[in-house]
């Protein structure tokens, strides 16, 4: 039996490790369809991921895949992108990987406006390690490390990305597969630091402890609370237990890091070879 997206899946790596009811497969599906519809050469894309459930995605794509250490997908991606600007470099990872252990790298990559597309699967907890609290876990939610309810305040990833100057920012739920696919297409063609957050159900860990129900029930609830709005300011892109504003929040242009870097390198190296700057010790 074949699937129309089979050529984008690495032979020998499927079935994936994701639980029944997990939304990560929908995100992967949307990404592969976006690549397919744009007609991109899959040999010119590098998918970089960190550690965690979503971190496994770099092994499932039939493209160059980089499964880095925990939290370090973005700086590895920067090394690749600056060295080979002609490649499309996509970071796909989870909320804990990108925003707890890897938060500092997100901050500086967005600030620099490096031409990367970062897709964050936000499932509100650490799924792979057994459902612990993370930086996006809603207040009062139950996890294996907040057995009496979460006393911390979660990050709003959209608002954070906006404060850092990301040029394209969107949030979707896996209940919006078509919008997500179109948004990934926009992110893949946008020059600069693009960020897409995707709310996704972790049935096995988060859902079980927070009475989200069996997979269909969890999906139905997400569809109710995740509402799409146009023209909302990132500061008002709320993400709460009973209401999540989705949509595109920013699409602007500004000078991109890799291009500025290579403009400088070309200018300096040409001047140096013409003897216009002193090369000496």
């Amino acid at each position: 039996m074949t699937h129309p997206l089979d050529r984008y899946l690495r032979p020998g790596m499927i079935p994936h490790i994701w639980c029944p009811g997990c939304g990560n497969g929908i995100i992967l599906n949307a990404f592969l369809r976006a690549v397919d519809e744009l007609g991109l050469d899959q040999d010119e894309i590098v998918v970089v991921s960190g550690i965690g459930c979503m971190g496994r995605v770099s092994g499932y794509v039939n493209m160059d895949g980089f499964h880095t250490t925990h939290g370090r997908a973005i700086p590895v991606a920067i090394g690749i992108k600056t060295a080979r600007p002609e490649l499309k470099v996509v970071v796909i990872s989870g909320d804990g990987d990108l925003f707890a252990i890897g938060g500092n790298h997100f901050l500086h990559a967005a600030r620099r406006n490096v031409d990367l597309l970062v897709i964050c699967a936000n499932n509100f907890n650490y799924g792979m390690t057994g459902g612990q609290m993370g930086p996006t876990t809603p207040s009062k939610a139950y996890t294996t490390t907040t057995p009496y309810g979460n006393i911390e305040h979660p990050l709003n990833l959209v608002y954070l990305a906006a404060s850092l100057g990301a040029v394209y920012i969107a949030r979707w739920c896996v209940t919006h597969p078509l919008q997500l696919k179109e948004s990934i297409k926009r992110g893949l063609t946008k020059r600069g630091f693009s960020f897409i957050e995707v709310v996704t159900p972790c049935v096995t860990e988060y859902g079980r402890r927070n009475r989200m129900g069996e997979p269909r029930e969890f999906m139905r609830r997400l569809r109710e609370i995740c509402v799409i709005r146009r023209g909302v300011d990132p500061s008002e892109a709320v993400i709460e237990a009973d209401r999540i504003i989705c949509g595109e929040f920013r699409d602007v242009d500004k000078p991109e890091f890799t291009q500025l870097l290579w403009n400088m390198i070309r200018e300096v190296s040409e001047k140096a070879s013409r003897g216009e700057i002193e090369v000496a010790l």
Partner: protein
Amino acid sequence: MSRRLDVLTGVHFVQGDIACAEGAIAAGCRFFAGYPITPSSEIAQHMAVRLPQVGGIYLQMEDEIASIAAVIGASWAGLKAMTATSGPGFSLMQENIGYAYMTETPCVIVDVMRGGPSTGQPTKPGQQDVMQAKWGSHGDYEVIALSPASVQEMFDLTIEAFNLSETYRCPVILLADEVIGHLREKLIIPEAEEIEVVERRRPEDLEGYKPFQPGEDLVPPMARLGEGFRLYITGLTHDEAGRPRASSPEAQGRLVRRLCDKIRLNRHRIVKFEEHYLEDAEIVVIAYGLPYRSALPAVEEARRRGIRAGIYRPITLWPQAEERLREIGERAHRVIVLEMNYGQMLREYQRWIDPDRIVFSPSFGEAIPTPEGVLGLIKRCMR
């Protein structure tokens, strides 16, 4: 013929850190990512000036973790890549250094050692990271680490570090110290044609290529990203194709053995040392890096005074010439070990040399061993 911008042939008077940066560029390094830290910052500063001149990339990252991560990414993108730091930054890099060993990523890490632990003495020399260089990351792996003792060697051994790294597809660590890094002395940069530069072996064709399938030397050829190989690079235990084998004891044994054996079994090709006056030496001084510079004149002075003293200096700290050190230990009455720490390499020497014959002289901070001090030690051993 137009002048080479990457090899600044001639006689110079420069700092060790600058010589290191020039050695890297001469070796073909075209990517540097780093974070400011004393006493290695001059390497980054010089790379920021020089790399764009030769078409290379300098990046200042947000921390040392990001620096080594970017270096790993750039190496797989096909560039020779390097970072430079000191103790605190070297500590932060350890997890990704282990990842680089696991994924067989060639790169060079320079640690200009200062006094520790912790923030310690940023502007003073130390040799307190030599065991960290070997055991700093978790898991089993074998490392290559080099110890320069002069500005010239900051240049020469940085080139050597890149060559070893490309040959064995692994990180190579240059363990300098604050004094060697900041010292100014003569540097001779030879003609470009006289410098041996090694490039990593690349796969011959796309068909059937497995990124972790070794050749006879136990080293797999290395493809780069974006060439259609559809590489999968993971820190998980993997098979020859790169596929995770996180639960297979066979895969774990096969991979870890090979990662270690490619260094162990090639040790005779990697190990470097120098020795003087050992033929009839009754007293042998073992010293590396900065203390070697005080020990050599002390040994020469002892010889002038009729004392049969000799000196041995490991240039590769990892691995070392165990067989040679055993021979030395069997022949000498006394072996003096000098280190700017409280006994790290000492424990290695105690495994190869009768510990009762070893006299250990540690030093810290500014109390660098002097030639007079070492001569005094030698004379005391004669009694």
